[in-house]
């Protein structure tokens, strides 16, 4: 794992400690195209009876939780939303908190896929596929909560501008409808992006298939992909366009989610900082979730040379940077509450930190601002246990951030007579746990049956992928001498 191939990216051979040289993206002296293919495809090709025991245990737990979620949703639909703790004045309780929590997690995937693609951050290739999958599954969990929150789920189609017998149309001046458009666009575009990136890898799976079931299943979904260079040409252009489209999309989605709050007039919600603050928080929580998922996955599935310590290091730095942004947003909210001189606003924020929900606020600050500071130390960034713990506390902290925003503001609104204290019911709690069942069921199936790493993309960042005979007049063998300078097609 510590053996690196400095020729992959560095312009000069150098030790790992030289800050001017980037460690290679794919580690290992003898990695070539076939070994990368074998490493990734091998995971999906393990016979069912030899499935990793850890996977089976995780999957069993996840499916049980998913089943529990299904029963809870049935209970909710047949009984009504009164089974939740939502009540006057906090009509937005856990369902909305969970929605924002999950949709925020869903942001890292597209960020890694799109923004890092456009900015030529090639280290993304090792983790983008799994991050995209995580995005989609998180958005599935996110979409579920507002879907069942509407009460009469059988008229959920009223959310969409469909001609109906009532001759009514939805209100396009409402942020809640913007949210419907933003989240559904995000979900479907992410799905396209993910699937399109997977087509060449599915073709690889098809061509390696050992039985007809696999050949037909992967064959249909790989659409007859041959690897034709003329196809690659159009494909790469389409991928670039999708990345360019997904970049503003990913920034818009959580901005629109923040409008759900910011466009209202409730103190604590009605602030202009919300869109950038929510986006930073989304990236923060998304990277935390990527780390939480990737560290065990690379351990269990032998992908340590593809998802390298460098990936983890970079993600830890992003985690810390976005954590600082979130911390900045927390402090600027207080500053504006004081500087703005509006007594309701001041009260809302003092109440947030020192009121009934002080415990939630300080959990949030501890997890989101204080603990990520550990990552200033390179040693701690390299300690997977520390990284794992920080990523999990970040997820906890980000859940509490949404709870603090939604519940503290609602429970202390303008009219003191309607003040209240929100308490979740057992359905709230178990449903949130159940949503993890849904998420992990999908994610574990993905790990087991689909290309976990973008095989074709990883190959493009390997030194062998570049023709240089004519450009440089020198030959360069695969994973070869450390002295040979590699060409960087994106330099």
């Amino acid at each position, binding site marked *: 794992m510590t053996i690196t191939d400095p020729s992959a990216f560095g312009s000069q051979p150098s030790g790992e400690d030289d800050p001017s040289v980037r460690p290679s993206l794919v580690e290992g002296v003898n990695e070539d195209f076939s070994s990368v*293919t074998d490493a990734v495809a091998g995971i999906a090709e393990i016979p069912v009876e030899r499935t990793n025991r850890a996977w089976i245990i995780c999957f069993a737990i996840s499916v049980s939780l998913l089943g529990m979620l299904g029963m809870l949703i049935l209970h909710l639909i047949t009984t009504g939303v009164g089974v939740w703790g939502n009540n006057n004045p906090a009509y937005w309780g856990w369902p909305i908190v969970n929605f924002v929590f999950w949709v925020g997690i869903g942001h890292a995937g597209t960020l890694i896929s799109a923004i890092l693609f456009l900015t030529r951050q090639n280290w993304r290739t090792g983790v983008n596929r799994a991050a995209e999958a995580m995005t989609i599954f998180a958005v599935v969990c996110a979409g579920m909560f507002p879907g069942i929150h509407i009460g009469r789920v059988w008229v959920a189609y009223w959310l969409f501008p469909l001609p109906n017998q009532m001759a009514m149309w939805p209100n396009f001046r409402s*942020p809640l409808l913007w949210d419907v458009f933003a989240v559904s666009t995000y979900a479907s575009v992410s799905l396209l992006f993910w699937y399109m990136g997977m087509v060449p890898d599915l073709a690889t799976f098809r061509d390696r298939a050992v039985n007809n079931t696999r050949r037909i299943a992967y*064959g249909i979904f790989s659409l007859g992909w041959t690897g034709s260079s003329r196809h690659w040409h159009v494909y790469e252009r389409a991928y670039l366009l999708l990345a360019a489209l997904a970049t503003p999309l990913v920034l818009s989605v959580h901005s629109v989610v923040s409008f759900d709050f910011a466009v209202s007039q409730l103190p604590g919600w009605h602030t202009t900082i919300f869109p950038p603050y929510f986006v930073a928080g989304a990236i923060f929580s998304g990277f935390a979730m990527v780390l939480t998922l990737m560290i065990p996955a690379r351990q269990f599935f032998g992908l340590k040379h593809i998802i390298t310590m460098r990936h983890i290091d970079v993600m830890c730095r992003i985690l810390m940077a976005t954590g600082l942004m979130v911390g900045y947003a927390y402090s600027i909210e207080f500053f504006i509450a004081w500087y703005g001189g509006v007594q309701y606003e001041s009260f809302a924020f003092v109440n947030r930190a020192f009121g009934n929900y002080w415990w939630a606020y300080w959990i949030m600050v501890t997890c989101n601002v204080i603990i990520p500071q550990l990552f200033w130390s390179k040693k701690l960034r390299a300690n997977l246990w520390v990284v794992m713990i920080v990523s999990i506390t970040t997820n906890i902290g980000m859940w509490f951030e949404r709870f603090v925003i939604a519940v503290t503001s609602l429970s202390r609104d303008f009219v003191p007579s309607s003040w209240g204290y929100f308490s979740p019911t057992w359905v709230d709690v178990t449903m949130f746990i159940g949503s993890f069942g849904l998420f992990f069921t999908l994610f574990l199936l993905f790990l087991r049956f689909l290309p976990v790493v973008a095989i074709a993309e990883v190959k493009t960042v390997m030194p062998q992928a570049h023709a240089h005979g004519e450009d440089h007049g020198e030959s360069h063998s695969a994973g070869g001498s450390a002295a040979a300078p590699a060409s960087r097609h994106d330099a």
Partner: protein
Amino acid sequence: MSDQKKNDEIHGVVAYFDDVDSVMSAARKVRDAGYKKWDAYTPFPVHGIDEAMGTKPTILPWIVLGMGLTGMACGLLLQWYTNAYDYVFLISGKPNWSLPANIPVTFEVVILFSAYTAFFAMLGLNKLPHLSNPLHKLPKFRRVTADRFAICVEAKDPNFDADRVRAILGADTSEMEDCPVDTSRAALPLWFHAVMALVTCATFIPLSLAVKGRFATSEKPRYHVWPDMDFQRKRKTQTGWEGFEDGRSMRLPVEGTIPRGELRDDFELYFGVAQGSSVPPRATYDAGSMGGEKHEWLQSFPTAVVVDEALLERGRERYGIYCGVCHGAQGNGLGAVALRAKAIDAEQWGWVSPKALQSDSAKAYTNGELFHIASHGISSMKGYGSQITPKDRWAIVAFVRAIQASQALPKAPGDLPEGVDFEPVPTIKDVRLSEASVDAPAGGTEPAGEAR
């Protein structure tokens, strides 16, 4: 000629390469030889191969741009049509049509259209899905999606010459083979076609049902997909139910009790009959069955009603509100409704003109009967019992008696005080059809006089 024959049998010549450099070099040679129907197959997009193959830039970005602009137009049009044109409604005093509020949705629609276009146009330009490709039949070709590179020059190319192609590719290749035309493709079984035809037809059923539902009329009530609260587990009024002994779902008041507002022990006040006599039914007055001796109609006024100027004034006011529109302000039956009915000849549909209250037949009614008519109606007239309180109905009766006394005189009586202007009021018979108009103020003396 033998070459030509051979060309028909093979799909093309496939050469395999082990690294990027050799495939690039071979690609340049094939390009320079002028072939068109050929392609390089690689496990990942090889940088620079587009130039080596002479691939022209794709038009995909322009398609996406076009569809993105279409999406913008659609997004704006959707919001304008739904919120500013077809279903305009006021939300918090916001304008019905303001671009800032429409930016988020418009933006999302632009992205949606563009992204779908980028994906599906990519498939379309690449002619995917293309599941049956002769190259997939070559076992060696399968490594092309893993770690090998290939170039296939197709026999369809007009310049195709298998030997020449082999010579061009031979310099760099590690292995070469002919790809045979795929003859193994068996025709799809008959049942598959039959099932697909049925499925295709079946997909039109929902659409045709929707079209039928849209344009055909039906006497059946609409099918309730989501009944919500339309059907509840309760008994409705005026229905039977075997659960009670009398078989009715409704209950009578408990013995010896009177429902609130139902106390009617003053017969004179409430029914217009003598105390203790039989109570007339709550039915439209029918002179044949109800008049005369059947009921002891009150001749004067109930003891509870004091006839004085205040009562007459109250009666005049109530009469103006409830009665004048038909009977006219003067009681001559020339109200606005009556004039309009006359103008459109409403009698052909069963309309009965409002009675002129000065007529002898109207005068012949007892006070009790007038009260009953005001309460429950007569012929075309509906009862006003639910709208006017009993005392007010008696006030109206008193006012009607007053106008009968003052305005029913055929000519100026001698006992009128000096200076009082008297003119006999016109009646409905005096209104000529051509001049009767809804514009005529109801029962006004001047217009009525002109109508004459």
